[in-house]
């Protein structure tokens, strides 16, 4: 899993990496050898091992499963372990900067505590009791909707790219971001959950601020349809419940017939 320190192939790449801390910083160019099949994270590891041992970067699994190595590669939020070097033009520098929506700690590492604070404020899962034999019974078709959202690896790329907070620090207190609105949708669609989560989604976590531009879905490395399958249905349920007399009327009429 560790890329060889000494590259055997002889192709060089230029990486333009943001280096600095909360006090400031800037882009610096590095020339690093690249082997066949490598990803951006491999090149950063080689850079650490051979030129810049204190280059700060988060990573864990290096297989797209843990969501640690999030950064912006040529301006696009992505996982560096899935960004294959071969997909970039060979003669142009690759620019790597920290996630813009979060305060930088050092180099490519940002303070993502915003996300953990939001997670801590969500009302917890509240299941119905088990069946008499000690089991919960659920049909596959009923668990699949929430299962899609539980594929989330918490890379926070959706949080980073969402324009509600990306350049609007002032919106952060009122807005939980796509990841946690999706979590509310997940719980709302969970076959065992007993809480009504629609009001809180709107009032406490800022669902109304989302105007479904789908930027979050576009950057999701898991391919979760955040907007289409989580946020829009959640908005519809909120509207259904609270605000929209026409929908309410429609439902009522349908029920009568």
């Amino acid at each position, binding site marked *: *899993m560790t890329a060889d320190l000494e590259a055997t192939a002889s192709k060089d790449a230029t990486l333009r990496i943001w280096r600095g801390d909360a006090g400031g910083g800037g882009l610096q160019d590095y020339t690093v050898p690249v082997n*066949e099949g490598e990803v951006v994270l491999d090149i950063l590891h080689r850079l650490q091992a051979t030129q810049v*041992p*204190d280059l700060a970067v988060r990573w*864990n699994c290096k297989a797209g499963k843990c969501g640690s190595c999030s950064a912006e590669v040529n301006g696009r939020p992505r996982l560096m372990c899935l960004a294959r070097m071969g997909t970039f033009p060979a003669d142009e520098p690759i620019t790597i900067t920290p996630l813009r929506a979060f305060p930088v700690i050092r180099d490519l590492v940002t303070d993502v505590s915003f996300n953990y604070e939001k997670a801590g404020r969500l009302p917890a899962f509240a*299941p119905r009791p*088990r069946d008499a034999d000690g089991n919960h019974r*659920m049909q596959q078709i009923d668990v699949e909707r929430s299962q899609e959202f539980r594929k989330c*690896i918490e890379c926070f790329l959706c949080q980073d790219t969402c324009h509600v907070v990306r350049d609007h620090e002032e919106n952060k207190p009122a807005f939980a971001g796509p990841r946690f609105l999706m979590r509310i949708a997940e719980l709302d669609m969970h076959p065992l959950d007993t809480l009504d989560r629609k009001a809180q989604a709107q009032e406490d976590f800022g669902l109304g601020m989302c105007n479904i531009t789908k930027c979050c879905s576009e950057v999701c490395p898991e391919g979760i349809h955040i907007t289409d399958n989580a946020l829009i249905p959640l908005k519809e349920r909120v509207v259904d419940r609270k605000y929209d007399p026409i929908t309410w009327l429609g439902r009522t009429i349908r029920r009568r017939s």
Partner: protein
Amino acid sequence: MVELERHEYDVVVIGAGGAGLRAAIEAHEQGARTAVVCKSLLGKAHTVMAEGGIAAAMGNVYPEDGWKVHFRDTMRGGKMLNHWRMAQLHAQEAPDRVRELEDWGALFDRTPEGLISQRDFGGHRFARLAHVGDRTGLELIRTLQQRTVALGIDVYMECTVTRLLTAPDGSISGAFGYWRESGRFVTWQAPSVVLATGGIGKSYRVTSNSWEYTGDGHSLALAAGATLVNMEFVQFHPTGMVWPPSVRGILVTESVRGDGGVLKNSAGNRFMFDYIPDYFRKETAETEEEADRWYTDKKNNRRPPELLPRDEVARAINSEVKAGRGSPHGGVLLDIASRRDAAYIQKRLPSMYHQFRELAEVDITAEAMEVGPTCHYVMGGVEVDPESAAALVPGLYAAGEVAGGMHGSNRLGGNSLSDLLVFGRRAGAAAAQRAAQAPAAPLDESAITEAAAAALAPFAREGGENPYTIQHDLQTTMNELVGIIRTRSEVVRALEQIEELKVRAKALTVEGHRQYNPGWHLALDLPHMLRVSECIARAALEREESRGGHTRDDFPGPEPEWGRLNVICTQDGEGIALHRQPLPVLPDELAEIFEEAP
């Protein structure tokens, strides 16, 4: 006095994977003031990489399954070197541990009756693994993470423990560490510490393990006076990716084989039929036809040899490659494309589909995968009491991969996630109970001063090597000389090289400052890596037989005498001392289970 942040708890859990979080939840629920300390962000621990499932004899798919069958499979998979009581508790309690995950929000795949579905895996007689596609580890970690957050348990993220602190009587008094973000020091005073730090795989070059797997818990335990058991047993998972080079070692789940995938050599032969050991012959299919029928009719057919325990399959792949029958990049072929339709593969193995497409540009619904053995898991670990997960040091507990004994000489797939839950809970409960009875001892201030000085020493030295070079050389040594097949002369050479690496590590230099400095972090992990590597090599030299995850070319078979012995490591000054210790004897009522027909 050292400038540091001080905290006080009843129970401090080191590690936030499945075992650590399960321990913390239990300790908290028993009323203990509990903290979790972890090297990465919460939710990123290596448990997230587990794919196939959680082994638990729930009987949802095969009602004839039960704890005795699971116990038997586990013991036979470990070649009877398991601590029988751990294997028994594990098999008995795993179903309840899985069910309670549902109360905390987990959403497993379902049977047509709406129960938790269970899938086939190597070495398990019945379909037994509760799963969510092939991302079960993610489901487990997220469920436990969300439960931890809901309970309001304190979590110290991106914080590394470098020392356990002990009282004059040798019992635990707390831990010392640093924040990775700032480099500032922290102490936690606590009468109970639970080690849940995972494994040691980062000491090997080809591994499925992440940077965190530097054997911290094994090493901290030794330094505090605890013992390690059977460190020679390292599991090489038979199927890691082999191409391209940058992904070499990344795991390819055993579910591929559980769901119908087969291994082929360059001639297109299902070579596993040539490697069925006598030990498993009675329960393994003899022909491809019988093996293929088994997937749908388990009563009248025997298991495909591709689903032998991992040690058997890994050795077979190694032999095929050595004999020149490997795939283009030095592995063998894992083929599910020609055996199952694309929709089935994408439904059952979505992560594998995604992983091969993104990292290797291979479509697993159309082509075979190239796979080969990768260092995956250490069966050896801290010697613990089965009931309480207590180590020999009062106040110290260990659960999950860092603990030893449960899996004997080889772990079955799926038994890790269940192990985390069963013994994580037991460790948390015992740690909380001790804390309720034993007040925390005052911290040894001189030990804190010494720990801080040791942590900062690499900055003060000049002109030394950088830590990455030393880590790289250690990985090469372990991979080449204490890998899947071992011989005396090579292990002796490894021990000589480890001695040289220890000297080099003492002279290394770290550049930069204390704020989020990966070079410094690695410099502080290296002594742990060297210490556990020495344990593995010494134990591998001591055990003159081949069994499970320890294969000696110069002692190719199992020896009955060694089947009754554990190898115990202790810290001896700067080095490691070994002794042999009799294995706990299986009681008669459990021995009977092995006399029944397979």
